């Protein structure tokens, strides 16, 4: 799956996450995460995002994520929406 444009999904409201994706060269996956629960859940959030990227077969993407305490299901949903919008 090829990312061709910049897209975003989600919000900065409590319990949500704002995901912005933009195209990158094949093979490059960049992730810039900012979270109000970084110390407690930073690693988990990164895994959830990268897992979704992999699952959707995306091969080059830069992701900026601003997390406001979203649950894993919300994170996965927002990443999927942003990637779908960026094809």
């Amino acid at each position, binding site marked *: 799956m090829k990312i061709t444009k910049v897209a975003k999904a*989600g919000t900065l409201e409590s*319990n949500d996450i704002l995901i912005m994706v933009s195209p990158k060269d094949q093979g490059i996956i960049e992730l810039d995460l900012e979270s109000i629960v970084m110390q407690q859940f930073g690693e988990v959030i990164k895994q959830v995002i990268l897992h979704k990227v992999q699952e959707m077969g995306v091969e080059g993407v830069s992701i900026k994520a601003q997390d406001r305490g979203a*649950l894993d*299901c*919300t994170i996965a*949903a*927002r990443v*999927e*929406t942003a990637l*779908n919008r960026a094809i």
Partner: protein
Amino acid sequence: MQALRRSMLFMPGNSPRMLQDAAILGADSIILDLEDAVSLTEKDSARILVREAIKTIDYSAVEVVVRVNPLDTEFGAPDIEVIARVRPNTLLIPKANEEEIRLVDKTLTKIEAEEGFPSGGIKIIALIETALGLENVYNVIKASPRTVGVLLGGEDLTADLGIERTKEGEEIFYARNKVATVCRALKVDAIDTPFTDTNDHEGLKKDTARGKGLGLTGKAAINPRQIETIHSVFAPTQNELKWALRILEAMEEAEKEGQGVFSLDGKMIDAPVINRARRIVDQGVRLGLISGEGGAK
């Protein structure tokens, strides 16, 4: 035992926070809304979010209903396609008419077969909010055996009728009657339109009682603070419970003695009265007001 639908609470489908807490707000059913509560540009986002929520959040304490978009929009079909695969309890179909319900039924049957879900497991509630839908409500319900209830949408209906929607609700008197009567005839739930002034609890109480008085069995809510009031109106009163229990006791006595017909306090008790008493006791048991064996707690 069939789920109670005294209250059905609308929750916006694109709000993670609301989806997280939806199950604990006290409503019998929650309606995760992909239609009016979601802007056109967020339809895709809400659809995926609701799908993920149903997959992971524990909603076992409530009935999960998803209001999909109307089938005559570009969003309706993909909503059903995506949501049905995570098996919500029920779909709420807006602007329902006969053909649409038939189409939804067919689509659900196909998805259930593909996913290996029991056939007919996902139920339908028809949202009656057009003049045509209202006049045809009998056939709308009959269009699918999945249909377990009708929700009356007062706002859109009055708009379709070109009349003013008021707090007193005189203008939907006929609609309430019609929905209540047909639903009773076909033994499905009749859910009243929501009361839109969320700060007026007295008004809500009156409006709910008006619907109950016409035979509606539950009411939609647009704010969690409305639930307690709605439940208080639909709960059987202690007097009703006592009356119902006495009827059933008298009936058992009569049966033991081999009497077909019996009377209580000088009044003949016939089948409709017994059925009403049964419904009240049944509801009392489900609400924990009386124990299963009968007898007030």
